[in-house]
C-alpha cells in the first residue's frame, strides 16, 4: 500500500461522509421517495485496497458508519451495517475470484477486475449492507415486504451511483 493510496482513501473517506450526510440524505425522488434512499458512502469500503489488514477493514467501517450516524442521529445504525459489510468483504472476494494471484492491482475496480467481477462484488456487498441497515432501522416484521422493496430499490440506486463513479474513473485514467 503506497502513501498515495492512503492519502486518496483518507480524502475519499471525508468526501463520502459529507456527500452522504449533506446531499444524498436529502435527495427526494417524488412519490417513490420513501422507498429510495441510496447509501453511496459505502463506496469507501468497496474501494479499500485488497492488502488492507482485515482488522483495519472492520475498524474503518465502524468509524465510517459512526460518521454517517452523526448526521442522521441514529448512533450505531450505520455502524452496525458497515461492520457486517466489512466482515463479509474478504469472504466475497475469495468466493468470486479464482485465486489471490488473479487479482490485478491493489484497489478493487472495474478497470482492473473487469465488469463481471466488479458487478458481483458490488451487488453482493451493497445488498448485505442495505438489508442489514433497513431491517435494523425498522426492527419489526410487520413491514417485512415494504422494507424488502426499499432494500431492492435503494440497492439499485446505490449500484447505479457506484457504477457511474467507476466509469468516470475508468475513462479518466485512460
Amino acid at each position, binding site marked *: 500500500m503506497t502513501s498515495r493510496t492512503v492519502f486518496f482513501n483518507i480524502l475519499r473517506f471525508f468526501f463520502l461522509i459529507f456527500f452522504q*450526510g*449533506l446531499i444524498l*440524505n*436529502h*435527495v*427526494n*425522488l417524488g*412519490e*417513490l*421517495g*420513501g*422507498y*429510495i*434512499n441510496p447509501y453511496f458512502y459505502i463506496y469507501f469500503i468497496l474501494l479499500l485496497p485488497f492488502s488492507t489488514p*482485515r*482488522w483495519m477493514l*472492520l*475498524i474503518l467501517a*465502524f468509524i465510517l*458508519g459512526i460518521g454517517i*450516524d*452523526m*448526521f*442522521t*442521529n*441514529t*448512533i*450505531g*445504525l450505520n*455502524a*452496525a451495517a458497515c*461492520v*457486517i459489510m466489512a*466482515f463479509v468483504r*474478504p469472504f466475497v472476494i475469495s468466493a468470486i475470484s479464482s485465486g489471490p494471484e488473479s487479482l490485478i492491482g491493489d484497489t478493487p475496480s472495474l478497470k482492473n477486475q473487469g465488469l463481471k467481477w466488479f458487478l458481483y462484488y458490488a451487488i453482493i456487498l451493497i445488498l448485505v449492507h442495505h438489508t442489514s441497515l*433497513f431491517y*435494523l*432501522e*425498522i426492527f*419489526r416484521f410487520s*413491514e417485512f415486504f*415494504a*422494507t424488502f422493496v*426499499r432494500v431492492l430499490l435503494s440497492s439499485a440506486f446505490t449500484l447505479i451511483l457506484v457504477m457511474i463513479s467507476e466509469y468516470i474513473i475508468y475513462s479518466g485514467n485512460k
Partner: protein
Amino acid sequence: MRNLFLFLREHYFYFLFLLLETFSLILLFNYNDFQGSSLYSVSNTVTGSVNSMFSGITEYFSLRKTNRVLIEEMAKLHSRIPEAFYITDRNVFYKKDSVVKLEYKYISAKVISNTTNKRNNFLMINKGSIHGIDHHMGLIIGNKIVGQVVSVSPHFSWAMSLLNKDSRISGKFKKNNQLVNVEWNGGNYRKGQVKEIPKHVVIVKGDTIITSGNSDIFPEGLLIGTITDFTNAQDENFNNGEILFSTDFNSLGYIEVVVDMMRKEKEELKSTFKSQ
C-alpha cells in the same frame, strides 16, 4: 492458556467483528430511544453547526417560496388584529384579563436539516433550550402540523417528523368531531394512514382531518390532511382510511414551535388524579 491465546490470534477477525457489532447494536438500542437521550444532544451540537452552515447556503434557493409563505402568513395575522374587526357593541367583546389568558405561545425557528425518504424521519431546527424549547413541543407551519420535539441541546432541537414509525397524532373529523389516529406507514411522504375510524362515521373522500387537541402537543383545529381513500372493513370494529397530508414535508423552511403555557398545569392535574 497458550492454546487460548493461539485460538484468539487465529480467529481474531471473528472476535473483533463480534465486538464491534455488539458495540454498534448496544449504541443503536440504548441511545436511539425517540424520547431523547444525552447522546442526541452531543451529536446535535456537532452536526448542528455543520448543518446550519450548509442550510445557510441552500436557503437562498427557496427565497421566493419563503417570501410567499411569509406574506400569506402576514395577511392572515393582519386580518386578526383588533383594527380588522368591526366593533358594534363593546360589551360583547369585552373580556376580563383573568379570563383571557394566553394558552399557546409560538416561537419561530428555521429547519436546518430534514429528511422525507427514510422510514423514520427527523428534522433539526436552529432553536434550543435557551430559546425556551423543550421536549414534546409541537412543530407547525402555518396552520398545518409538522412534528414534535424529542430532544434539545442549548442551540438546536431534534424533532420527530410526522413521517416516523413512532409518530401517532390524535386527530378528528372536522365535520363531526369523531376522534381518529393518524400514522405514517412509510413510502410516499404525501400520504398517511387514518386508523380507528368508528364504524358509524360516514366517510366521504375529501373529509378534512384536524388535530383534536387531546394530546397536549398541538392545539385543537390544526390541519392534518384530507381523506383520499378508505376501506369498509367487514370483520373489524374500525375502518381505516388514507390521508393526503396538508403539509409538504419536503419543503419546510421556517416553522413555528408551539409552547403550551398551561402544560404544566395540565400535567399536574393529571398526576394528582393518578396518585389518589
